[in-house]
């Protein structure tokens, strides 16, 4: 699979016109989402650099990571998002209503070009004056520059897409855990290990084990992209699932906030674990009853800053629970993102075919193959010479396979459990 980018010309920052970010794909070939001023120029430039930094980083393995950030123009804000090449770090910069002053001619999501000369120019932005910014070329430019586009094709791994989508679903289970002055983050040592963080006065303390109220910090070196933004932020907030002593590593979100901007990084549970394999959505994907609901809900999403579940329920006639399940499903196909600060989904359609990538989840494909090969015998799955025994427990299935033994539900069901689930679903029909 290839991602192909076609920009009219490189994005650039000049003294006369300010920042012109070029766009590619989404609702149009070169959509335009914003034209106006950024009130916090230096901070926004630094935040944008942080998002670009994550897009071109790999924190675990040498794997190509040259996918451009995406930008979403919602009704009153811009959201820049990127995902690291190792599939373990997700970054988002929200330019809040206070941070921008201008018109939003269109809504949608598109790729945005952040090239090396632009990064250098962004690093130079300083001073207190507002910066003129256009996201996307104006219509005149599109019509006159027809035919002369800068094209680039880069490999687009399915796991990258799956991870980008999956992180939204995982973050939907997060709660705010603590808030301290932004400087506290600067004092944390750089480490590649999984540690836990608890607030201590106005600063933070690391601990080696999960305790109540702690947030997992898997590889503090992966927060490096936040560092330059710290001097603009007033507070750092951490989000994560509730943990108890003895828990295994979990994902977490770290957010720096200023009145105009919000920069968040979401880290996978361990540096060597990409979000792509977390399997948080496999059970939902294995059943297909929510797919229709998801299609229905997607038709009434309308680029509001956040998705309002009761309003959607009214509009679709589904109950709130089914709307939420539908949103989860939409999250896996890249059609909504999750904002932990607002504790709500937001409308965003990745400019790639993410739905196909989600359906091609290797574990799901393998499970379907097992069912098709007739390997499922009740609760026992035959796989070559080996026999795996699947057991139904309170919240799902367990298995005797080595994969399950290694992850114990941390990364969703194994292929044998999925196969049993699929096979039993077939029996029902």
């Amino acid at each position, binding site marked *: 699979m290839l991602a192909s980018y076609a920009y009219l010309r490189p994005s650039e920052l000049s003294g006369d016109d300010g920042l012109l970010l070029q766009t590619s794909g989404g609702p149009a070939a070169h959509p335009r989402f914003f034209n106006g001023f950024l009130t916090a120029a230096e901070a926004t430039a630094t935040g944008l650099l942080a998002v670009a*930094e994550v897009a*071109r980083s790999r924190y675990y393995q*040498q794997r190509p990571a040259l996918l451009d950030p995406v930008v979403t123009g919602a009704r009153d804000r811009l959201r820049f998002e990127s995902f690291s090449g190792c599939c373990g770090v997700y970054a988002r910069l929200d330019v809040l209503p206070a941070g921008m002053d201008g018109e939003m001619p269109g809504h949608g999501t598109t790729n945005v070009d952040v090239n*090396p000369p632009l*990064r*250098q120019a962004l*690093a*130079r932005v*300083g001073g207190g004056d507002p910066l003129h910014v256009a996201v996307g070329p104006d219509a005149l430019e599109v019509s006159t520059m027809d035919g002369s586009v800068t094209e680039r094709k880069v490999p687009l791994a399915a796991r990258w897409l799956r991870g980008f989508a999956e992180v939204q679903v995982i973050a939907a289970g997060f709660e705010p855990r603590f808030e301290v002055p932004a400087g506290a983050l*600067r004092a944390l*040592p*750089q*480490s590649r*290990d999984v*540690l836990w963080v*608890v*607030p*201590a*006065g*106005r*600063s933070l*303390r*690391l*601990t*080696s*084990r999960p*305790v*109540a109220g702690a947030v997992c910090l898997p590889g503090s070196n992966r927060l490096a992209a936040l*560092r*330059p933004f710290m*001097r603009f932020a007033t507070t750092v907030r951490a989000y994560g699932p509730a943990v108890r*002593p*003895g828990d295994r590593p979990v994902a977490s979100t770290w957010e720096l906030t200023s009145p105009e901007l919000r920069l968040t990084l979401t880290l996978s549970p361990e540096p060597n674990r990409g979000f792509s394999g977390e399997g948080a959505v496999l059970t939902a994907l294995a059943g297909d009853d929510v797919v229709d609901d998801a299609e229905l809900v997607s038709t009434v999403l309308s680029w509001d800053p956040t998705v309002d579940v009761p309003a959607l329920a009214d509009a679709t006639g589904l109950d709130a629970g089914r709307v939420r399940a539908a949103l989860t499903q939409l999250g896996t196909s890249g059609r909504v993102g999750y904002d932990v600060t607002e504790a709500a989904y937001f409308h965003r359609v990745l400019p790639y075919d993410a739905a196909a990538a989600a359906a091609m989840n290797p574990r799901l494909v393998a499970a379907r193959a097992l069912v098709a090969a007739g390997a499922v015998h009740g609760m026992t799955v035959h796989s070559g010479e*080996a*026999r795996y*025994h699947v*057991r139904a427990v309170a919240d799902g299935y*367990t*298995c*005797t*396979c*080595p994969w*399950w*033994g*290694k992850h*114990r539900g941390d990364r969703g069901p194994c292929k044998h459990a999925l196969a049993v689930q699929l096979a039993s679903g077939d029996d029902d029909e």
Partner: protein
Amino acid sequence: MSDFWPRLGWHVHRGEVDATVRLLHNATEEQRRSAAADLEAYVKKTPPEQWWSRQHRLQAVVVAAVGCLPSAARVATLLGRTVIADSMVSVPVKPVVQVARLRGTPFMADLGHRLAAQREAAALAAYEVAAALVVEAGSAPPDTDAFVRGWVRHHLFAQEMLDPRNVVLDRMRDDPMLTALLPRLFEIDGIGTDLTRESWRKQGTVVTALATLAKEGRLDRTMLLDGCVGRLLRGDRPNALRAFGLLVDQLAPTVDEAAARTLDLVRLLPDAPSTVAGLAQRLLRQVDDAGRLELDTLLKVSEQVLARTEKGLVKTQLRWLGAVAKREPDRAGEIAGVVSVACGHPAADIQELARKLGGEAPAVPEPWVGDAPVAAPVAAMPPPISSAGELAEEAAALFSAPLSVVSFERVLAGLVAVRATDPDGVTELLTPMLDRLNPRSEFDHLPSPADLNDALWSAIRTAAGATGKSSWQRLVAIVRDTIRGVARHDSVVPVPAPQRALVLRAGEVCARLTKQPVPNLVATPTSVNGHVDAGTLVDRLAAAERDGWEPWRFDLEQALLRLPREVDADVLARARKLGSAAGTRLADWLAAGGLPDPVPTRIAQRSAAVWMPEWRAVVALAPGGPGSGLLADELCTHVPPKGTGVWMPLTEALWPAVLPGHRDVIAAWALPTIAAAADQDQPGSRELLPLLAECTGPVGPALTIALAYGLAAKETTDRVAAVDAVLALAGSVDPVLLGQEMGAMAAGGVVKLNRGTGALTDAARGGAPDLVRAVVCAALPAVLAATPPPRGTPDLLALAAETVTATGWRGSLPEVTELAGRPGKSRSHVEARRLTRLAGPE
């Protein structure tokens, strides 16, 4: 014509490179092409391992491929196969070029570019061949990341560099690719690390070569300066950025050049790595001294620099502002306002300097001490394994993560209990997975008698009815010999007693499960720290008595060792009613007050080996009373060797649960590992100290020394775990003893002082300022007495001052007062004076 491949193949297979070249040279293009398909088939059908030891054959294949395959694309595909690509470094360039010439110039250029465009590792390995082809063809060099990296490394490490007359500078000056590739040096991420690397035989670095070439006029200064500043602004790993900072330094920009880049330099000050920020600071100072820097710009950026933590940067900036204040007296108030930022810096000398320059400390100092963590109650063990299915699942999961008390004990108990009720189910489910579970690969040597994974696997095999393998026989023999009191000599290093206790219990399952089955184990803990509730044990033994079975020997001994230190009177009364041998033993054990605490003796091991620390503090143990059982006697008798021992990987995380009421004993056994994490920079056993903190019993010398080493461990995670343990033990550890141990280690140079200071700072801020204050004050005498004082002494004094302030402690510290009274302006003196002032009478 059809006989060409057999002839070519013969030479290729025999690895005759020269003969291959000759043959290709004398053949027609048509003949060469006729061998293409056969050559490709030959490469594909040869299994990878056959290439490894046959470099000549591989070289001949490369030469033949270049000569025969119809297009450069097909050559690149064949050479891109992992097995060939990995070995491209060893392929001689000359014969390849000789053969390539036969194919024409466009072919050579095309192939060179294609080899350079492969995946990173392959393109790097093929650099020499690709570069030779491109040069021979006279085409523009490829500009892929890998090719440029290869180009740089070629200048540093090529074979010719072994000639001492060959220096990087001369080679680069004559390099035809220099102008074309130079701009890429500023664009490729991470290439900076290679630019500062010293070549073979120390013939210079690329950075010095570039600076000299600029001086000679061969390269454009402005282009180099812009490239460096641009790269520094865009950022990279600190290690990679260093090169560009050095290059700017060596180019020594003029005031004009620096002034032209003022805006860029200003942007580097707040966030760039400290060396880069320091460079920007120096250049801006030049600009300012020439009167070409606006004061507003300076003040704004100063505020950001003064908020940084690096002492050097802050101090330089303060001195600069001091000079500016003298120059511009009417702006002095504004400048003093900016200087005040530095009053919040942790170092005393910086605060002092800031105050001298008119800075004022913030009115309300930030409270920095957090609440002490509240210890969570120790969790209960999860419910026992109840079915063969669950047992199979747990067994399958057992070796994919390090063993824990919970996983080990639950599976061990499950093997016994589930097999007693459902032997057929256990055999049916476990048998098919036995080979898959085997924790040892077939290449491993015989397992060591300390290998718990192997012992547990043997126990699982026993439960599945598969006995009689060498490991199993050995374990049964170990159990038998231990009971008979026969010493075994199958281990070079004696196995530590806690590890032996665990292996013996797994071994006991092997020895007894089929011959003398019991319905349950009695030693399975009731809480995750290893303790067995006394009432529960009475119940277990009562059930055994009722059903007419006796618990196994080591199982019962282990159960007794896991009893809490304090037991209610009514439990003792219930125990007295038991009539079985086991019941009587329990009642006697409880009445005697459990295992008497063994007597610890601190000793210093010495070592003359250079890779070992000079000395290491360890603790010997002697039983505190008459014999209490085989396991107890082994656990309470520890005579450490005189020299520091050999480190071996063990499952120390399980040890605290062997003797949960005597954590100091376990600490004594585990000291070699914990100490090695600090004095040999080994990976520590990070869970161990927090686990010991969760156990019970006095904190004696062994655990105190363990904490001292733990706080000075190399790995962040190990130190964080030690801080957790210190906070949890804040009420029971003797701070003076801990401080004395830390001070002696730091003064003796066996551990690094700054690690311990950092960890203690975290502990103080984490809610134990009183404890840390006492620890630091106890450590200071030894540290200050050392000549010279260890690196980081001022920071230890600063921490003392910080904790004295936080706790309001007053008292005398003679060694510190003495240092404060001596003349001197070093940071140690300044910190000592501040500390004396703070701790002195009000």
